[in-house]
């Protein structure tokens, strides 16, 4: 690198020993002689100088000759793909070994020959190749016009204009990846019509803001996929003319995005997949009036993130075309005893969902989930005023907000029956005892007793108990019983060896004793 610095060095991206940085200062720093460059490192921990007061992060002063300003696009391609015509000795590097055995490469010569034909290259990856500019005008278009996909991530590109200069020359460009480049975006309008064939644009970790996104994609009329991961994006405005063809929008790892901003992108007509993993969304609220959240066959990818309330899923139910949802690893489903229960609850909450966590929901599973949901909240429904008879059905507002689909489930499967909602009594002895009244039809002065007897007690034992009570010999006793459910019918308990259960004696029945 020459020692003479020109003013246009400021703002350029450079590389020093693997670390990337931006130049902020070029000149002389007294008392030391010679030119210096003041750079701000990408990595905030690197750098020592506090004297650079314009910087917030770590910075250093470096001699210009230690710094790599990068190369142009074409040179980078040639470096990577072209067969070097250098002397043979250069290529006879030491033989690589794995496990003490040499590694044999097969057919690398023919591959290298094939790749050297730059004009045939369609997919090009120049990641971390220190590309900083487009090079001479038209050079790229002449050498490799057929490039369809280019990966320029982690290079030294410093501004969006530079990217356009490169992309401009590639008429067939469909996929452009410029992630991990700290780009300066233009504040005014951008040259339009330059990226007409572009379908996929990847701008992860570029520090772009939402307004800049909208300006840049103005030149991409056919854009289908847009990736904006880790950019600290805050959606500030609704896109009006742009992003109308976008099918996939990746906004993961942008912590500043919260639920209020979702409304701004909800109207994109072609949006099919929305990836919102690791954002600041903790709850959702969509306005009820179906103002067309017009997403078609939407898929939401939401994990891992903090879903704190079950009402979240009720909100998702409001999206008429939501078909797929991914939300593993969030605290709500972790709390639940089993992920299985959580899965069933989610399925029941969102009626039109077809795929949950990338597993298809089969009709059997949906039926099971909905029946479970209906049973689980049946008691609450009753308490909130629910009733089988639609006339008498008056549900509280609270219940309706918490379980919006419940009415629909009642219509589909019928209102939950009482016997379904009976909670299981624990299997203790006292729950198995029959409470019976004992009457003496011939001796009216005797009081009516109430006793608790197990159903498995034999008639003989009952007679024994009664004989001790009444001081009457067992052989004289004649037992029968009467049930309040069938008044007037008396059933004789004749066989001493059978139990009360055998005669279907139930709780609340009345034993009649005669002697």
């Amino acid at each position, binding site marked *: 690198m020459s020692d003479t610095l020109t003013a246009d060095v400021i703002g350029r991206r450079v590389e020093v020993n693997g670390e990337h940085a931006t130049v902020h200062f070029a000149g002389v720093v007294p008392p030391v002689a010679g030119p210096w460059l003041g750079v701000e490192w990408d990595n905030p921990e690197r750098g020592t100088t506090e004297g650079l007061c314009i910087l917030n992060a770590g910075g250093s002063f470096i001699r210009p000759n230690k710094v790599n300003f990068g190369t142009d696009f074409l040179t980078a391609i040639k470096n*990577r*793909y072209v067969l070097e015509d250098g002397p043979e000795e250069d290529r006879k*590097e030491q033989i*690589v*070994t*794995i*496990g*003490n*055995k*040499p*590694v*044999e*490469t*097969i*057919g*690398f010569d*023919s*591959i*290298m020959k*094939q*790749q050297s034909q730059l004009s*045939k290259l*369609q*997919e*090009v*990856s120049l*990641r*971390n190749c220190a590309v900083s500019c487009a090079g001479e005008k038209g050079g790229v278009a002449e050498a490799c016009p*057929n490039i369809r*996909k280019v*990966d320029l*991530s*982690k290079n030294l590109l410093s501004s969006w204009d530079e990217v356009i200069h490169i992309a401009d020359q590639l008429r067939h460009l469909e996929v452009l*990846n410029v*992630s991990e480049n700290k780009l300066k975006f233009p504040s005014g309008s951008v040259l339009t019509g330059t990226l007409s064939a572009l379908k996929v644009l*990847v701008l*992860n970790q570029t520090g772009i803001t939402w307004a800049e996104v909208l300006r840049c994609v103005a030149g991409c009329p056919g854009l289908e996929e847009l*990736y904006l*991961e880790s950019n600290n994006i805050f959606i500030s405005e609704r896109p009006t003319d742009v992003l109308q063809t976008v099918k996939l929008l*990746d906004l*993961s*790892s942008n912590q500043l995005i919260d639920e209020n901003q979702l409304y701004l992108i909800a109207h994109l007509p072609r949006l099919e*997949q929305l*990836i919102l*993993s690791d954002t600041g969304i903790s709850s959702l609220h969509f306005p009820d009036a179906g103002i067309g959240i017009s997403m078609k066959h939407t898929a939401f*990818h939401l*994990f891992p993130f903090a879903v704190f309330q079950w009402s979240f899923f009720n909100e998702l139910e409001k999206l008429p075309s939501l078909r797929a949802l*991914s939300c*593993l690893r969030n605290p709500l489903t972790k709390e639940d005893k089993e*992920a299985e229960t959580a*899965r069933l609850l989610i399925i029941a909450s969102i009626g039109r969902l077809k795929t*949950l*966590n*990338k*597993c*298809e929901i089969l009709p059997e599973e949906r039926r099971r989930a909905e029946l479970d949901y209906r049973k689980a909240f049946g008691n609450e429904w009753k308490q909130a005023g629910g009733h089988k008879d639609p006339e008498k059905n008056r549900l509280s507002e609270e219940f309706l907000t918490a379980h919006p689909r419940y009415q629909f489930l009642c219509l589909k499967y019928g209102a939950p029956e009482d016997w379904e909602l009976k909670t299981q009594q624990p299997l203790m002895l006292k729950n198995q005892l029959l409470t019976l009244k004992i009457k003496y039809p011939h001796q009216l002065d005797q009081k009516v007793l109430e006793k608790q007897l197990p159903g498995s007690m034999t008639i003989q034992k009952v007679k024994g108990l009664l004989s001790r009570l009444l001081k009457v010999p067992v052989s004289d006793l004649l037992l029968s019983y009467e049930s309040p459910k069938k008044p007037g019918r008396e059933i004789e308990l004749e066989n001493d060896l059978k139990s009360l259960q055998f005669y279907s004696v139930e709780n609340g029945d009345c034993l009649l004793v005669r002697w």
Partner: protein
Amino acid sequence: MRECLSIHIGQAGIQIGDACWELYCLEHGIQPNGVVLDSQQDQLENAKMEHTNASFDTFFCETRAGKHVPRALFVDLEPTVIDGIRTGQHRSLFHPEQLLSGKEDAANNYARGRYSVGSEVIDLVLERTRKLAEQCGGLQGFLIFRSFGGGTGSGFTSLLMERLTGEYSRKTKLEFSVYPAPRISTAVVEPYNSVLTTHSTTEHTDCTFMVDNEAVYDICHRKLGVECPSHASINRLVVQVVSSITASLRFEGPLNVDLIEFQTNLVPYPRIHFPMTAFAPIVSADKAYHEQFSVSDITTACFESSNQLVKCDPRLGKYMACCLLYRGDVVPKEVNAAIAATKSRHSVQFVDWCPTGFKVGINNRPPTVMPGGDLAKVHQSICMLSNTTAIVEAWARLDHKFDLMYAKRAFLHWYLREGMEEAEFLEAREDLAALERDYEEVVQSF
């Protein structure tokens, strides 16, 4: 020339086959009705593919109408699974005669698949195979897809392999077999079926690529975020590996271009023919472009057990041979640098008597993914095929389970009823014990 015939047997084989041909069609630009995509945009691709037109030929047969018919045969002893293909998306891709189904299935019983029910269908299958073979100018060999644990996959395959060796003795036969998952078992008698079929097919197969359901299940669950991986998700991953292995057969590439080369490169002894496969990178579709994998990253990943398709620990064994197949936008310089930088290099141990070590090849065609699947499209991928003695662990597990059941003669009557004898069980078990000993011998130094 150099055609390969694929035969898919049993439910596992057929479902893998379905996914497999779908992927091949996507890679070669063939539509579901067999016609090649002919749009303006693809003129460029087709022009590039002109010199590889012969690649179609290895796996697809072109009819005079311009339709490309896969060189495949689907066989099952009961009709349900094959009916799925007959009514599925690719029904017009296959000729009806390629889809063979019987009426009564093998009920997870090797004896039924091999002796009673299988013997009724075998002649028809062989006749169809003959027909397909006649269409080939120079048949290289067969690729058999099947599972070890099922009745058709185990029994019928062993019957078929015997007859194929009889008729086509000089042709190579490669197998892609689904090994019964240690923890996820669909049938109790899988160990019986697996041991019996391994005993009968070992001498007829040249190379068997094993796929362990549990390993793939774990990959789907942990790396792809699929909550309950279904057979569909598992198969989509498996066929990516199958596609990488057969890539050199279908596209121009330098390594493993013939079926015979797999043998020469990977199989030191006829009986030690069970290489292990590993695949990288495995990225979930909703994490596309989040992480960029360099060639070094994916090379290192291949040596990790989480990327393997069979559950075993290669650090406990020694390597006998290994192939690294790169696909996509990979430059030879980077491959050399990546291999030199692989940290796991020093933990890799080779047997003493083997002179060659790793063979590395590159195939320019990038990996394709099925739309709507769980995998993200990546620019570069690597598939590692290694013949390591650590795979004896898989056989040991199987033998142990076999012993537990056989000691009590449990479930044996199902097999004896179909005409099998206990002697066959003992023979099979001894054969596998001998296989384990063979592996141990290989490791010993002189």
